């Protein structure tokens, strides 16, 4: 059964097309990542799923309901953690969780939920006096307080320190283990690789890839690379003739062999056969970031390098 179904989704803001013919399904109980650079249409897509925006075209269904027409019904089963959505700033953590609990018919015990997101010590602290990471954790607690069957988390670890980030990812994993369907928007590959069963890659308002994280790397056609250093020369033709090996490049004493499939075994055996002493042998597997670069010609994280 699909918890979320999106078909032919389109949304324009004035002259700019934010989302252009996006379609995907999310199986109930799965964790799906929505990955893409800024401006790819991630937030617009999830806002349409959350019923915050009316699509210009296409259909969106959450547990079979239209999030725009059946807003009330969808809000009862959907938990949303939004980017840059504030709360009553003069209320305390406990007051806010209780308020949002009261807005739902069914829900979790506020004190327990505050404990789960690690805010027990800040339970009596006003929202405007929480740190960014604490505010973020509170917003996740509020997304969960109504015991939703589907949760949308938009950039949930932005502004968190490494420890809080790890705790937050554990929390999401726990939700998924409880059978909640999670749609996770992110531009961090490590989060997606760790949590997601499936990843949708958005670029310029379109889905450019829809696969499991390993499949996405495969779809980008990126193979493995094996690197090592060797003192003398070696029989490069014999290496190139090995199954799967595509190229052999020598730079000084360093050799880089790239290709598809499991390269390390055959290469190791060949080096032993040639009597070559290889040092610093290591294998490089492509990441989602490499896959993204390959599929879109651009880096996912603008900080990691200029656009190709």
């Amino acid at each position, binding site marked *: *059964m699909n918890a979320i179904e999106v078909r032919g989704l389109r949304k324009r803001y004035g002259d700019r097309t934010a989302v252009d013919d996006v379609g995907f399904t999310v199986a109930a109980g799965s964790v799906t990542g929505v990955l893409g650079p800024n401006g790819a249409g991630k937030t617009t897509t999830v806002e349409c799923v959350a019923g915050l925006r009316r699509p210009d075209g296409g259909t969106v269904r959450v547990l079979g309901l239209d999030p725009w027409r059946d807003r*009330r019904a969808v809000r*009862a089963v959907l938990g*949303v953690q939004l980017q840059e*959505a504030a709360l*009553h700033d*003069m*209320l305390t953590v406990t007051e806010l969780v209780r308020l949002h609990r009261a807005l*739902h*018919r069914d829900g979790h015990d506020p004190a327990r939920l505050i404990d789960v997101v690690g805010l027990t010590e800040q339970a009596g602290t006003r929202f405007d006096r929480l740190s960014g990471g604490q505010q973020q954790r509170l917003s996740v607690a509020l997304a969960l307080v109504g015991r939703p069957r589907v949760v949308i988390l938009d950039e949930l670890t932005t502004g968190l320190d490494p420890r809080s980030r790890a705790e937050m990812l554990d929390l999401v994993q726990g939700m998924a283990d409880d059978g909640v369907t999670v749609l996770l928007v992110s531009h961090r590959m490590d989060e997606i690789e760790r949590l997601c069963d499936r990843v949708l890659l958005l670029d310029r308002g379109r889905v450019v890839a829809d696969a499991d994280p390993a499949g996405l790397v495969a779809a980008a056609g990126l193979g493995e690379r094996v690197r090592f250093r060797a003192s003398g020369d070696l029989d490069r033709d014999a290496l190139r003739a090995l199954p799967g090996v595509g190229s052999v490049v020598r730079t000084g004493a360093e050799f880089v062999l790239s290709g598809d499939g499991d390269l390390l075994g055959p290469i190791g055996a060949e080096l032993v056969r040639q009597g070559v002493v290889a040092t610093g042998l290591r294998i490089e597997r492509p990441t989602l970031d490499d896959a993204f670069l390959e599929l879109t010609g651009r880096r996912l994280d603008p900080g990691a390098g200029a656009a190709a």
Partner: protein
Amino acid sequence: MTRTEEETVTTGTARPPASAWRALVAAEARMVARDTAGLVVPLGLPLLILVMVGTTAPPLPPGALDGRTPLEVFGLPVAAATVLGLVGFTNVPSFLAHYRRSGVLRRLGVTPAGPAPVLAAQVAVGFAQVAVGIGLAFGVAVVAFGAGAPAAVWTALGGLLLGAAAFFAVGLLVAALAPTTNAAIAAGLVLFLGTGALGGMFGDPTALPGPLAEVGQVLPFGATVHVLSAAWLGATPELAPVLGLVVTTVLASVAAARWFRWE
């Protein structure tokens, strides 16, 4: 998804529970109580006006105001309109504009209750604050200056309700149009001081040039003061101020509903 499951989702959990209203009103009450300036000024300024009128009004010839004092006929009505103006024109819109600006309305938009009930909760708390402010002013007037009840109690209560409706409707229109919290406060204060100046806050409005006095008389401040003055004197209020309050309420409500932006 099967049809039966769809039915459960739509009918079983669609409506927000009654506890949502209680919780939202409690939340707004806490927000208002913790906003010190917004809490104290609407309670303090009317008292200041009362004390000024009560201590500086010249003695009148007997029977000049049907036996009522200037404090009752001018001081209390102006104090009541001041509370309404500060809370209705300024406080309520500043909270609502802040909620829109900071994303509170957007966040409530993804809860089963939706964003609209928070408007009603904020207005309800504003009404309560008005009741406290006017009650306080009346209590001080009675205790410190020997004021009595209005001659026409129902006219006074009706005038207060109608006045409150007009002030809050304009406040909601300000909240609908103001892009920021500061814009809402600025617009609210300009409206408050403008209608107040034309409506008798700074002295007898009949001293104003003819057309200005007439306009001031039908705007919320002057109209509320007129109806409350009449109530203390036991006179029947004129039609124009009463109509002014009704028309303001209707027009401002419709415009607010038409133009209110949730984000």
